[in-house]
């Protein structure tokens, strides 16, 4: 080491160290090496699969979706689908239906049990905790199969007997309850409701403002509901006045069908480019400081590159990867618009909705629940009850945890400033509890949706079970599995988007 301060700096070599000791370079080398390994592994597996398929003379194609399916489904919007694609669609609708219904029911039951567990009544809280501890420690599949076996012991459906128990119909064929039937004028009635919603929101906002200004009770929510009810009531009779809406969709549909594939391709490519450019610009703008552009970190560069590469990948996919995409968009878009135009079309003067009690009809040699009621088959009942009970037991714990998570001081503080108990619950306790509850609740909804796939064990025609039927008949296992994954990923994404939306809203409420 040198002795004088002037030489110290000169003696140390500045500049870049050799690459294998440069922290940045080493980091990137490790990452790229890993990436190469992953890509190579995927590449290896894919080529193997393609080779194996080639050897067996199989191609990966999705045209089986248009081929006829030789078997019926047990339930759903279409029990005798023409094509495999239609069958899968019916299965998807079944999954979505049972998931949505399950989410609602599980939430209600879960909240009740969760609050019950906190009850000061010893028996109530014990019972709720026994319910939770029993249900959540037994595998869901076992429960579903067990419920299925229980339903099998219910009495048979008898034709002459008519609906058992009038409105609720319990038999070894499952459960039937009265159903809302969407009737002729429903969609035009929806327009009325939409306008009612808008007007109601305006009124609510005005009342809110008046409340803020004068401090008097102005009942904003009640007025909103009242306005909505009035519009709903008027619309119930007056809905045919919107008969002309269908024509608008007809017009748009005509315009859409006039598009040509290259136009769509160009539009999609430009959209991808524009999105990437917009994102990068915004990103850089955020990094820009009064002193000029900040130094970008590795992370930032990676993101920018990723955005660019992503856009290019989309363009490549649109132009080369799947040239048929654009014509598919045009065709299905036109179809969709046609359907909408029909729904809003002229001359639909019937009632918007109708409620019918379940009935019984002869199906082949056996009596079966008829089309009037909302029917769940034996398998459907088992899956529904299974996922609802199971998820409710988890939701109950989440709700309990959320309520307990609000510090006692909050209650005391709220009461100390003289809030009424109800106001305190609504404005102080619930928003805070909800903030804790919401994220895990979203996870439970996701789990519930995924768990409906256990339907396959009891033969309920959900997306997975229909998929199994399809690949048993067509041999297209790989394709079906890919559809499964896509479908459920889409469901997960939707649920997390919705939950996030509420999450953000709750945070605003909290402020």
């Amino acid at each position, binding site marked *: 080491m040198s002795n004088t301060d002037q030489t*110290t700096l000169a003696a140390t070599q500045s500049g870049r*160290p050799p690459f294998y000791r440069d922290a940045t370079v080493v980091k990137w080398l490790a990452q790229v090496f890993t990436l190469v390994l992953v890509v190579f592994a995927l590449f290896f597996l894919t080529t193997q699969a393609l080779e194996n398929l080639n050897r067996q003379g199989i191609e990966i194609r999705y045209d089986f979706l248009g081929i006829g399916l030789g078997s019926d489904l047990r339930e759903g919007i279409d029990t005798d689908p023409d094509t495999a694609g239609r069958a899968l669609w019916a299965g998807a609708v079944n999954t979505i239906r049972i998931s949505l219904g399950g989410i609602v029911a599980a939430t209600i039951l879960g909240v009740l049990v969760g609050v019950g567990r906190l009850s000061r009544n010893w028996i109530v809280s014990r019972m709720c905790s026994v319910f939770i501890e029993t249900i959540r420690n037994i595998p869901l599949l076992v429960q579903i199969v067990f419920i299925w076996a229980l339903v099998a012991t219910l009495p048979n459906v008898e034709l002459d007997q008519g609906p058992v128990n009038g409105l609720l119909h319990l038999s070894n064929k499952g459960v039937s309850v009265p159903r809302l039937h969407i009737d002729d004028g429903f969609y035009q009635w929806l327009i009325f409701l939409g306008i009612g919603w808008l007007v109601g929101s305006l009124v609510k906002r005005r009342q809110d403002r008046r409340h803020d200004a004068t401090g008097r009770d102005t009942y904003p929510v009640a007025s909103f509901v009242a306005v909505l009810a009035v519009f709903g009531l008027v619309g119930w009779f007056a809905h045919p006045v919107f008969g002309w809406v269908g024509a608008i969709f007809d017009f748009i549909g005509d315009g859409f069908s006039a598009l040509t594939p290259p136009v769509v391709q160009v539009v999609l490519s430009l959209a991808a480019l524009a999105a990437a450019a917009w994102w990068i610009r915004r990103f850089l703008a955020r990094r820009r400081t009064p002193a000029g552009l900040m130094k970008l970190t590795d992370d930032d560069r990676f993101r920018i590159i990723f955005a660019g590469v992503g856009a290019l990948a989309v363009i490549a996919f649109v132009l080369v990867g799947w040239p048929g995409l654009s014509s598919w968009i045009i065709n299905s878009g036109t179809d969709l618009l046609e359907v909408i135009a029909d729904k809003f079309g002229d001359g639909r003067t019937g009632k918007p909705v109708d409620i019918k009690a379940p009935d019984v009809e002869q199906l082949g040699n056996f009596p079966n629940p008829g089309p009037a009621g909302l029917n769940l088959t034996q398998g459907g009942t088992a899956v529904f009850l299974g996922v609802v009970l199971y998820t409710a037991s988890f939701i109950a714990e989440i709700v309990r945890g959320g309520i307990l998570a609000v510090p006692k001081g909050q209650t005391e503080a709220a009461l100390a400033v003289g809030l009424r108990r109800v106001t305190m619950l609504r404005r102080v306790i619930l928003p805070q509890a909800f903030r804790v509850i919401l994220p895990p609740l979203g996870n439970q909804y996701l789990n519930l949706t995924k768990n409906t796939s256990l339907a396959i064990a009891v033969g309920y025609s959900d997306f997975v079970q229909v998929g199994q039927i399809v690949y048993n008949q067509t041999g297209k296992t790989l394709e079906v599995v890919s559809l499964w994954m896509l479908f459920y990923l889409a469901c997960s994404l939707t649920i997390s988007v919705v939950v996030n939306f509420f999450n953000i809203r709750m945070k605003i409420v909290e402020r």
Partner: protein
Amino acid sequence: MSVSDATTALTEELAARDDMIVCEGVNKWFGDFQALDGITAVIKEREVVVVLGPSGSGKSTWIRCINRLEAHQEGRIVVDGVELTNDVRNIERIRSEVGMVFQQFNLFPHLTVLDNITLAPIWVRKRPRDEAEELARALLERVGIPEQAEKYPGQLSGGQQQRVAIARALAMEPRIMLFDEPTSALDPEMISEVLDVMKELARSGMTMMVVTHEMGFAREVADRVIFMEDGQIVETGTPEHFFTNPSEERTKLFLSQIL
């Protein structure tokens, strides 16, 4: 002898020693906030430097740059003849030469006091375990808590934890010790026990750089006081000069607020 004479004498005496830390035009930004603005300073061997300044003035950031807990963006930092660059080997070398003591102690809660101290000597200095433990016990003796070796940090008081932290840093046999507000998180009655250890350390000839608000410590121990504000070094001088006759307005303002 006037103050300036004393300063000159000190400067001459210091010039004869080795440079331990050399900073040259060091700049650092957090986002668009400039935390360090052209820091240039040389710290000599066996020198004790106290860095003062209002909070947010960049003093912590500066000493955290010296062992690369934060990376500076412009300028050069040379520690004990090794420049801090992206070179992994240099960073490793500097970190094992520079000991650091944190405001929040940052002891490893899942390890006993003894393991806290021996961890780095064993795995970084590659010493045999027995030797490292012997050293650790000697260091605990030195900081005055030999009986706490088998306890976990959570069972110790704040002052004891901070002394363990000092022992942990010393166990690497560093040539430089950095102290980042070592007494700020302590209850008042525990401050002196930590300061005593630091004073003893200073007397033993360790090169030290201390960020602190303890003016008494600065007066008594420091060879030099550096005053920072807004990421810049405002004034440098001996404690007598600094506390009795500061030359900069900003320093005077700071001292009037704090004393």
